[in-house]
Every structure is written in structure tokens, then in C-alpha cells.
């Protein structure tokens, strides 16, 4: 069981009382006060303790015959390798983020262990069986789910993707989205070009992005450096110097002014000077520190406690300055205790850390003023920035119960009757189900070919993989790339790594390589290789694929569909709008939005009619708040 949170607690209780023999619980999280309204294995006195350990102890009392083991650890840790996963008959995902979900999904497919995936948001929930099968049917993947039904799936996709759902969900005008796009383009400009793939992740938070950019810049293999132009590096350096000088002034009286001027004045003015951007958009207006200082005179710092009201411009300014002061005091204290060797301490955003939340609220509102966006209360911003998903005991109870029912079917190998199940709040249809879907050829997890790659760590080089395995054995042409989590290791323009050993490239046992075929005519589906290290006889090839592989070709690209979410399950909230409105002439379908029948595999109509979601303006809507 991966995750001992809302669903996890319910699931553990059900598994224990159903009589499962041995259960391992993995969770890296600790218990927080806001968990107690649903995670019933935890009490007040458990706050700050490991979820996995407390859950184990609480549940163990109820069935002494069951072997329970708790791991207070990240499921992505190397100890949980494919072999470890193979030790289980069934894996339950009860996670709250897409990254870990994807990881477990990948590991389970590689280890060939059935996975019961689940998630909830508010009154809605979903359970799904994911099994690797050799036959073309019955296998399913989490990405698939996003596409099956419009809104519901998008909601879950959001939750998994850890995007800021409410930002796009709260019926904000187009302008907000525009601004979001702009901000990220601006913040990302140099490194977006660094990796084509980064573009698809544009909407993720700027902060995280910046951190990533820095770390990528630092740890980047030399071979990739050429992708930056000299000009870009110069501008990066200048930017970094400017930031550094502001950082140095932390603690001084004009620190707030310096930060303020950089973020709310200079950057804004620079953005404004790019005239091309403002041809069709309202240009931003920079803020004035002195003017606001004056307006904010006499505003009490206790203002920050009023989390239900929307603060005025001056109030936001006051909270901005005050929270910045609080944060810098904390950071300086923390850094004073730093040892020489370690990297300097940082403060990270936590929605439950009032200082950081005040700062984010005030800064976000000040930026909103710059871009003419409606401001929000601290309560609402906490939900947006903290990615808070409403959660209640009832939905978790139902979802966990459905997980166990699906597990029965998987364990009886009765996959034809296993279902994908949805919970909905509407009174007319409490639970809905759908049959399992075959793999989606465009999905990054299931629409791929998987194989092990046996590597002799003492001898194997990247070239052995490229020449012997991919080109000679599997018949790849010249246009393909080899990638891992860090980035691209090889493509036709990047051959510096060919002579390097796997170990020198940081490719370790139990990690994955993805081979992407860029053949223009008829590319193969992506090939995912899980690395196993083994000493191979001197006279054999140092890199080998143990199985005979038939790698399918990618299907031809289908025009953009009307559902939310692109073919990779990456729901993009914007961008396809115009295309859609052109494609869909509502006048052709006067009955649109009325009824839509849903059939399951047995050809049975699922009990209820579903009101087709006709508000497909691309906005992501959270149903229940």
C-alpha cells in the first residue's frame, strides 16, 4: 500500500479486516492536524509522527495474525526497486501526487504486478485497475483515465499533476490565464529552449522551475552546454548578479524596497518594454514603493490574520513588507547555524507556514494588481498555492471499499469483470463504472514497449546500446534519442557520451532509459528499458536485451479531440480553445448537452444517463466548491 493518507487509512482497515496476510505500508509523510478530519488511524498526539508507522501500529491491534510492515520512506527511493515490487501480489496506490503515481505505475508494469490505483477530490473519487497483460485487451493505464470522460477525469488529472487547479478553475477571466502564460514565458525564456520537453511543463510553478533551472544548469552534462547561446548565458549571469546583490542586503532596512522594486517594478517595466507581447494584451503597470508605503501607514500587521477578506492594495503591501521581514529574520537565524560545508539553508513554501503563506498571498495580489487581475483572500490563495484538494471521510470510505472489491477480481484473475469505478456526488448516480481500456499508444506509461536491459557495468558504454542493440538488433534508423530522468543522453546531434560507460553517465541499476524514435515516416512507440546490472561473459556483448522484442509503431496523429487533455494525458487548460470552437458547430447538434449513454463491455448500459459536459471551454472546473 503506497500512501497512508485518507484512502490509505480506510484501505488498511478494510485489508486488515478482510484478512489479507501481509501488508507493507509506504509513506514518507508525517501527520498534520488537517488530516484528522478523515485519517482516522491518527490522533492529536500523533501529529508530526510518521504516517506509515502510526497507521501500522493502530491497525495491528485489530488482527494479530497479519504481518504488517511500515516504511517511512519515499516510494521513489532505490530500495523499492523492481525486485521489491515483484515480492507483492498486488499494489494499492493511495497517493496524492502524479509524480509518485506515475512512478509506481511504471514500476508495477515493469515488475508485472497488478496495481489498484485510486484518488479522490471532494465528493468525487475514482478507482482503476492497471494490469500488464500480453493480450491486447484488459490492460489499462492512469493516463487513459483522463481521457475517458471530460470533466471528471480532468479533475483527477489535475490533482495528479499538482498543477494549481483552482487558478484556472475559479472562473477567472481569460486574462488570468494569459498572464500565467506570459509570466512563465518570461521566467523561463532562457531554459525553455534548453529542452524542448520543458515547454510542455510550462505551467508548473515558476519557483520550482527556477530551482530546477539552476540545478539543471549546475549538474548538466557538459555536452549540453552548447545549447545555450553566449548571449543567453550573459543575460543569465547578469540576472544572477542582480539577485545576488538583493540577497546580500537581506536584513538591512531597504531589503523590502529592493525586492519590491525588482519584482514589482523593474521586471514589470522590462516586460512592458517587449512591445510585441502587448499588441493584443493590456500591458502591465509597475507599482511604486514610496506611494504604497505612504498609503500603508498605520495599517496593523495583524491584518494578515483576516484570511476571509480580500485585502486592499495598501494592506497587501503592508503584509508583503511584514512577512518579508519575518521570513528574512527566520532565514538569517537558520543560516547562522549552517556549517561551512553544507549548502546554505533555504525556506520553502508550505501552506501551513503562516509566514510563507502571508508572503505568497501579498505577492500574488500585488502581481494581480500589476496585470489587472482580481485579487483573492488569503483563504482562497491558500487553496490555490497549497494545491488543497477538499477531502472527506465519506468519499475515502467508498473509494477504499471499491479498491478492495476490485482487488478481489484481480486476485481471482477475473479481469473481464474488473472495472474502472467513479464516485460522483450527484444523487442520481452515486457510483458509475467503466470497463478497463487497452493501452493507449500515445500514453507515456502504458503506450510504450517495456523491456529489461542487462548491462555489464564494467564494460558497457552507451555506444554498445546504440550500435549493437538499437541499430543492429532492433533496426532503429539514425533518428532517435535516449533519455533518462536527467535529460537526453544521446541524439543524432549529441554523440559526446557514446564512449562513456553507463556508470559514468549516472545510469544505475533499476533506473530507466527511454528510447524515443524520431523517424519521420513511421516511428516506433517509445521503448522503456529498465537497467539490470550483471557480469556478463567476456566474449558476449556487454549490453543485452533478454527478450525478443516486437516494437509497435505509433499510430497516426489524430486531430485534437474535444475532450480535455491531450493524448498524453497532459490536460492543457488553454490553447485548443479556438480550434475547438471552429470544429464544433453547435448548430449541427441541437441536442448536444442532453444525454449520453454509456455502455460497458458486456454491452450493458450503465444504469444512468450522463449529462454530457458541454462547457468544454477548456477551463478546468472543480465540481464541488
Amino acid at each position, binding site marked *: 500500500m503506497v500512501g497512508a493518507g485518507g484512502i490509505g487509512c480506510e484501505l488498511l*482497515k478494510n485489508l486488515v479486516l478482510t484478512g489479507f496476510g501481509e501488508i507493507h505500508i509506504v509513506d514518507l509523510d508525517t501527520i498534520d492536524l488537517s488530516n484528522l478530519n478523515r485519517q482516522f488511524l491518527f490522533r492529536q498526539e500523533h501529529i508530526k509522527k510518521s504516517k506509515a508507522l502510526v497507521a501500522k501500529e493502530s491497525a495491528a491491534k485489530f488482527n494479530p495474525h497479519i504481518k504488517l510492515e511500515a516504511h517511512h520512506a519515499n516510494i521513489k527511493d532505490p530500495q523499492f526497486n523492481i525486485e521489491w515490487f515483484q515480492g507483492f501480489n498486488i499494489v494499492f496506490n493511495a497517493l496524492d501526487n502524479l509524480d509518485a503515481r506515475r512512478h509506481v505505475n511504471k514500476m508495477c508494469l515493469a515488475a508485472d504486478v497488478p496495481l489498484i490505483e485510486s484518488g479522490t477530490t471532494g465528493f468525487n473519487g475514482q478507482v482503476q485497475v492497471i494490469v500488464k497483460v500480453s493480450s491486447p485487451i484488459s490492460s489499462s493505464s492512469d493516463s487513459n483515465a483522463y481521457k475517458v470522460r471530460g470533466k471528471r477525469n480532468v479533475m483527477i488529472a489535475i490533482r495528479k499533476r499538482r498543477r494549481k487547479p483552482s487558478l484556472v478553475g475559479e*472562473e477567472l477571466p481569460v486574462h488570468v490565464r494569459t498572464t500565467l502564460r506570459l509570466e512563465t514565458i518570461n521566467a523561463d525564456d532562457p531554459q525553455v529552449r534548453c529542452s524542448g520537453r520543458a515547454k510542455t511543463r510550462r505551467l508548473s510553478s515558476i519557483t520550482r522551475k527556477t530551482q530546477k533551472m539552476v540545478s539543471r544548469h549546475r549538474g548538466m552534462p557538459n555536452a549540453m552546454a552548447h545549447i545555450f547561446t553566449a548571449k543567453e548565458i550573459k543575460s543569465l549571469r547578469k540576472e544572477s548578479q542582480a539577485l545576488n546583490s538583493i540577497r546580500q542586503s537581506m536584513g538591512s532596512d531597504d531589503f523590502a524596497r529592493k525586492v519590491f522594486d525588482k519584482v514589482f517594478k523593474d521586471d514589470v517595466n522590462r516586460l512592458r518594454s517587449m512591445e510585441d507581447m502587448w499588441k493584443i494584451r493590456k500591458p502591465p503597470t509597475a507599482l511604486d514603493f514610496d506611494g504604497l508605503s505612504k498609503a500603508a501607514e498605520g495599517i496593523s500587521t495583524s491584518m494578515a490574520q483576516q484570511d476571509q477578506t480580500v485585502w486592499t492594495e495598501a494592506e497587501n503591501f503592508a503584509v508583503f513588507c511584514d512577512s518579508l521581514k519575518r521570513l528574512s529574520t527566520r532565514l538569517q537565524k537558520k543560516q547562522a547555524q549552517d556549517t561551512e560545508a553544507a549548502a546554505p539553508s533555504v525556506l520553502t513554501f508550505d501552506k501551513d507556514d503562516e509566514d510563507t503563506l502571508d508572503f505568497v498571498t501579498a505577492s500574488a495580489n500585488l502581481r494581480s494588481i500589476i496585470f489587472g487581475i482580481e485579487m483573492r483572500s488569503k483563504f482562497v490563495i491558500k487553496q490555490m498555492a497549497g494545491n488543497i484538494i477538499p477531502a472527506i471521510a465519506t468519499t475515502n470510505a467508498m473509494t477504499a471499499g471499491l479498491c478492495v472489491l476490485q482487488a478481489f477480481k484481480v486476485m481471482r484473475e477475473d479481469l473481464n469483470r474488473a472495472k474502472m469505478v467513479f464516485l460522483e456526488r450527484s444523487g442520481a448516480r452515486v457510483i458509475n463504472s467503466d470497463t478497463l481500456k487497452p493501452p493507449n499508444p500515445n500514453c507515456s506509461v502504458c503506450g510504450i514497449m517495456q523491456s529489461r536491459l542487462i548491462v555489464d557495468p564494467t564494460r558497457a558504454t552507451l555506444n554498445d546500446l546504440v550500435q549493437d542493440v538499437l541499430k543492429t538488433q532492433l533496426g532503429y534508423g539514425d533518428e532517435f534519442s535516449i533519455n533518462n530522468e536527467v535529460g537526453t543522453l544521446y541524439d543524432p546531434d549529441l554523440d559526446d557520451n557514446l564512449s562513456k560507460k553507463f556508470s559514468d553517465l549516472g545510469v544505475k541499476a533499476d533506473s530507466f532509459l527511454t528510447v524515443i524514435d524520431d523517424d519521420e515516416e513511421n516511428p516506433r512507440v517509445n521503448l522503456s528499458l529498465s537497467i539490470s546490472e550483471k557480469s556478463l561473459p567476456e566474449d558476449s556483448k556487454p549490453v543485452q536485451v533478454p527478450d525478443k522484442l516486437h516494437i509497435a509503431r505509433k499510430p497516426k496523429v489524430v486531430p485534437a479531440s474535444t475532450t480535455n487533455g491531450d493524448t498524453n494525458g497532459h490536460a492543457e487548460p488553454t490553447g485548443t480553445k479556438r480550434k475547438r470552437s471552429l470544429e464544433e458547430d453547435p448548430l449541427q447538434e*441541437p441536442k448536444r448537452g442532453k444525454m449520453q449513454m454509456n455502455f460497458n463491455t458486456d454491452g*450493458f448500459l450503465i444504469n444512468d444517463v450522463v449529462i454530457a459536459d458541454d462547457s468544454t471551454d477548456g477551463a478546468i472546473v472543480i465540481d464541488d466548491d
Partner: protein
Amino acid sequence: MVERTTTPPALQGPTAKEKKYDRQLRLWAASGQQALEDAKVLLLNSGPGVVGVETLKNLILPGVGNYTIVDEVDVTEKDLGVNFFLEESSLGKSRAEESCKYLQELNPEVNGNAIQKSTESFVEKPSVLDNYTLIILIGPTKDSSILEKISQHAQKSSIPLFYVHCVGFFSHFSVQLPAQFPIVDTHPDPASTQDLRLLNPWPELLIFTREKTGNLPFQPDHEHGHVPYLLLLLHYLNVWKATRDGKAPAKYSDKKEFAAMVAEGARKNNAEGGEENFDEATANVLKSLNPPSISSGLREVFESDDCRNLRKDSANFWIIAHAINKFHAAHNGLLPLPGALPDMKAQSSDYIQLQNIYKAKARSDFAEVTATVRQSERDLDIKSPIEDKEIEAFCKGAQFVKLIRGRPIRVAKSTEPLGWSDRAEALSMELENQKMMGLESLLPIYFAFLALDRHHDEISRLEQSRREPSPVKEIPGARNVSGAVLPVPNFAEAAHFYTPAVDPEKEPKPWPRFDTAEARGTFDNVVKELDRADGAELHNISALTGGMVAQEVIKVITKQYVPVDNTCVFDGIASKTAVFNI
């Protein structure tokens, strides 16, 4: 600023309680939480009693104010295997008290009580039920008279009653709401709350339209591509009306022609080959050009006697509904404007101005409704005025207000056939329709639970007749069993011959149609499972059912969202549910 220590002070930010309930406050807000904390829930437990306890768990965690468990039995070994809220040390002790104790640990803010009594002795004087705001009764009851008694009293006292069965892989619950159960805060889909009133524009909106579209053909490209689609539609409506006796397009063909006319106005000599705002306008023609209408739910409210004739003791709901009905009548079928504006292609300043025009109109409509409410309060001499907030919420959600008319729970008696009165036809249709589509209706699951209730009633009656050899008088219409000691019938066999039959006199349409092989097949399968389980609960099914029941309980207590109306069955083999209005 005060110098801070390393840990931030606890004084700042939301209270611990708000933090604990944060994730649910985002679903039902402070008002829903208050309602939950004011609630007093009664669980009348029996059988293995797991589903009842699991339901309570899901109410205690979010902070229901008060719960009471009535349960007759002591804890046995069997209980420990299925009930999570008992421990080894509970053996031999009162199950009500022990489960109450362990449930209480979940949330110290909740007040729990236990009463070791059977349901029948507890409700001997049914007025005891008036101490509670909601009742959860676990079936089957020992005999039909107990269910009947509780159901009747709950109706009389307007206490919501949940009747729950959970046996083997199947479960069922029925909700008996008060005769009138209005819900204002139904949480409709945000997209559907948009009433743009394009066919009835008001002066400010028309002035703004003229301002932004008066010069449409000569506008520079940028402005032309950014006229909000609402204004485009209003502009072209004026053009249309000018040549058609002032009439807006009403028929489908007219609307299609109108949409073509709007589309014609778009400039196509640009990179995109069109304009997004015009695309939006044509796409919204069908949706936005409908004459004002009200939902069937609201119509039902307006037509209700309580809405037409206010009394001094009328609930706030009716006083506001009355005022909104007056507004509706005075404004030619319009409802107060909700004031929300959809996302659209526009220049920021225009969008904000448009937003303000809509908000201002919504405020003035709200003021008009409030004035009517205040007048009613004066007329009826009501001392405590209704809060503005409540009136505003009603104005915003008027279209989505829902009135549920509670129906009594069906009581299956061994002595008389069940009557289906006004539901006979609809339920018969349900079976026939599903059959026509080659589907399996889940309705027979409900019948099987009725058969189970009837069977318990029969056994109880037989046992009683053994003790008292005279005919059982208190049950009207009972057959005379003459004190003969009869063998206890086997449920599966009895159920097979038991059909919730119809009285052909009262219900001319033959129902239920057990002559369909499908319905009979499902019924027999469920009966077989209920018989096999012999009243036992599977923890997992009970936990799941407890989740469903608690979900609906919360909706009823908070008067938010629309609860199941009124019977839900769950098939744990197919992971399917169905809801029927019985």
C-alpha cells in the same frame, strides 16, 4: 515588529479547529459545519451492526455534534472479526458502550452516548425520538410494526430517517425526509449558473453595447477582435429585430440563420482566418438566446401552497421564495440576475466594466427581493428579520433551488401485500425499460431486502403466536394461525414464492413484472446471497455502504447538495449502484 522566536507563534492564522476541518470547510463552508455540529444523530443498531458503526465513524470524523448508539447485545468473538471499533477487551461487554468508546476516540469534540437496549424497547414511547435531529435505523427490524412505528413518528416530527440494510455483498438504504425538504444551496455546476439575460437587456447594458459596437464595421482589427461576445450578440440582435417586427430569433431555423449572420460579421483576412470573439458568439447563440424559463424544481416551489400563502410561522425559505415569486411575476418571468459572467475574449478593461454592469444589476435585483421580504415580515409581524446573506444566496441560486417531498419508507408486512400506489407505474417502467435495453435492473435487489424484512416479520409473528395461542389481533389483517406450531420457514424458499404483489383493485397495472426472467433471475440471485450470508456483514461492504449513507446524511444535515431521493441499492459484485424513487 516584535522579535520572533524560532517557532512562529500559534496565535496567527486560523484556529486549530478551522485547521482540522479545513479540507471539508472547502466543501460545505462554515454554515454547513455549524449545522453538522448542531446535529444529534441516533443510531438504532442491530444485527452485526458494522454498517451502523462505520456510518457513525464518517460523521464523527467531520465533527457531528452528538451521537447516540442504541444496541441490545454484548460483544462476542464474531464482532471482533468485522467491527473495527471493538477490541479484545470488549468481549462480553455492552456493544453499544464499547463501540461508542472507541468511536469517541476519533474526535474529542464530539459527544457520544450509548444505551444498551433493543430498538423495540427503546422506541416503546416513540416520543423519545424527538431528542434527535436524525435517525439511522439498521434493518431488518424484529418485526414490521417497529419500522412502521419509527417511520410514522419521524414523519410526524419531521425528523429525517435513514433505513439501512447490509448483508453479504449487497446493501440498501432508504431516506425518509420530512414532507417538505427545501434546499437552497444545491451547489450547481458553476457553468450552469450563468444567466446572461440577453433577450431582456437593461439600459446600462444596452448603452455599453452601443458604445462598443456602434462603430463595429470601422473599428481597427484589434478592437474588432476583442468586442466581448455578449455585446456582439446584443448588437446583432438589434440588427435582426429591426427587420423582423422587433422579434428575436425563436425557432431553431431562425437561430441558425441568426448565427450565420453573426459569423458573417467576423473578419477573415487575418492569420487565424477568423476572430475568436465571433466564434464564441456563434457558439453561444443556442445557449444564450432562450426566453426566460424556470426549472421544474423552482416551479414546484412557486406552486406550493406554502409559497403562495405565508403564515406567521412560515420558514425563511418560504418567505424568500414568496418574494422571488413576486419578482418573477412582476418581471415577466425573469429571476433575479445571478451576476456571474463567463470567461470570454475581451480587453481587460471592457471585461471588468461588463462584469460591473452585471454585478450592479444583480445587486439591484437583490434589493428588490429584499424589500418584498421586509414587507412580508412587517405584514406578518415577524420580529427577527431574515439575514441579507440568506436572501442573497437564494437570489443567486434561485434557478437551482430544489424541493424534495419526503415519502414514507415502505414497510413489508407478512400479513398484507405491499401497495405501490402512485409509484407502481414508474417502477414497472424501470424494469421494462431496462429489459428492453437488454440490461439488468438493480431494482430486484431492493425487492430482495423487502422480502427479507417480510420474512423477519413472519418469523416474529409465528414466534409470537406460539407464545400466545390466540389470534394476533394487533396486526390488522393477520391470518388466523390458530396457535398451531408451524415450522420456521426457510428464507430462500419463502422469498421465492413471495412477490411484493399488487392489489389489482387499487393498481390496475400488473406490477411488479416478475414474469420477466431477468428480474426474477436477479431477485433469486440476491436472495441466495442474503440467505447464504445469513445476516452476516462483510467489513468491506459495510465500510463502503457506511461511506454512502454518511455522505447522504451530511447532505441532509447541512441542507447542501441534493441527497438521494429516496432509495439506493448497492451491488458489491458488480460495484454498481442505482437510485430509485420508491
